[in-house]
């Protein structure tokens, strides 16, 4: 295990706006009041991506970029990409985010998850020179909007998952990170993690059912 994998930059959030889930003190997590939900949905990454999609808003993009681009680059470097290639790919990943903003479905994924999938596909393309077979899309038409309650619930589940990961014992956390960032072992990654993936799955399933219904 390379040493730098366990080093965390604790100062990284200082200049960021306060809507990142990592910024919230743990005790606010338990209070899921309506005000809390409304306030957050006004400000979160989902809303910024929407502004990128609807208004082609460059300031919204810059905020998303400042938060996510350094994370995408770290992911690509951990997955074995050289720094120069990681820089180039990160810029392409973020440009893809702009170009595909209309395809993002906030009822089924958080912005981090969506960016993770774009970065992963770019990594396969750049590093392995392989094609990536993708499932058929089940996107909302450009005119349709996902149910706001679904979007808020999805965000809450995503926050819970982030919290659950940070609560994991270090050893288990490293195992999961190894599975996601290179150094694969199929038998190890199949281990039980105790993460609330079941709930996330139910949320996504619900969103898919509604989508299917809407497309009929």
């Amino acid at each position, binding site marked *: 295990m390379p040493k730098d994998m366990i080093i965390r930059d604790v100062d990284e959030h200082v200049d960021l706006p306060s809507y990142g889930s990592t910024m919230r003190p743990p005790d606010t997590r338990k209070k899921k009041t309506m005000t809390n939900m409304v306030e957050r949905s006004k400000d979160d990454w989902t809303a910024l991506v929407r502004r990128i999609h609807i208004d082609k808003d460059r300031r919204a993009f810059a905020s998303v970029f400042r938060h996510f681009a350094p994370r995408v680059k770290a992911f690509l470097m951990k997955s074995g990409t050289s720094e120069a290639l990681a820089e180039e790919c990160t810029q392409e990943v973020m440009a893809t985010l702009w*170009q595909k903003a209309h395809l993002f479905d906030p009822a089924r994924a958080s912005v981090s998850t969506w960016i993770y999938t774009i970065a992963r596909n770019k990594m396969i393309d750049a590093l392995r020179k392989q094609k990536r077979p993708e499932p058929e899309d089940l996107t909302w038409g450009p005119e349709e909007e996902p149910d706001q309650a679904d979007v808020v619930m999805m965000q809450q589940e995503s926050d819970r998952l982030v919290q659950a990961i940070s609560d994991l014992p270090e050893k288990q956390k490293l195992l999961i990170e190894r599975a996601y960032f290179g150094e694969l072992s199929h038998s190890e990654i199949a281990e039980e993690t105790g993460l609330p993936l079941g709930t996330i799955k139910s949320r996504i399933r619900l969103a898919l059912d509604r989508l299917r219904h809407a497309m009929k």
Partner: protein
Amino acid sequence: MSNINHHLNDALLMGYATANLPEAFSLVVATHISLCDDCRARLESFEALGGALLDEEVADLTDDALDATFALIDDGPKEPIKVTQPAKDAVFPSPLRDYVGGDLSAVQWRTIPGGVKQAVLETSKDATVRLLSIPAGAAMPDHGHRGTELTLVLKGAFKDEDDRFARGDIEIANEDLHHTPIAEEGEDCICLAATDAPLRFRGLIPRIAQPFFGI
């Protein structure tokens, strides 16, 4: 959509979510997920785990990274943004149509011993994937496996000693499984099958033919 009884396992879904599967396996996974909402939801939950982990670490970007990215945006997408909606009446979901160059009618079949037809699809060399067409009522040659074999039914159905597999169902086999799948009467069974090692046929004739047909 809801009649699928045999699904992907967590190791395959996580392998796909983390880009750790050979291309041949990814094709089978993507094709199954196009047919199966349950596995799609499970896959997206594994991707959510990747998204949550993305938050953990940062790397410095060059000073002009944001400007350079805006320049990329102004240039427009390198390739057109592709949206692959399900096609009505297609036998093959879109990821498979991409590899075949069309639907079932576009497949270039080759007959192999036993009346079975196959078409090997081009992927990276770490595993192989092929379409198989097994005549109604006929058996696949009896074979054991080295490594993992995935078989996804696209049309018709097959039965082995224990189970029935129909459209959308996926059979995950390993070296411990010795079985004799038989296509159901009524219609030919079309499957997409991936192996990470060549199939090992137990009958003499197929074994001799094996190197010639790339089975």
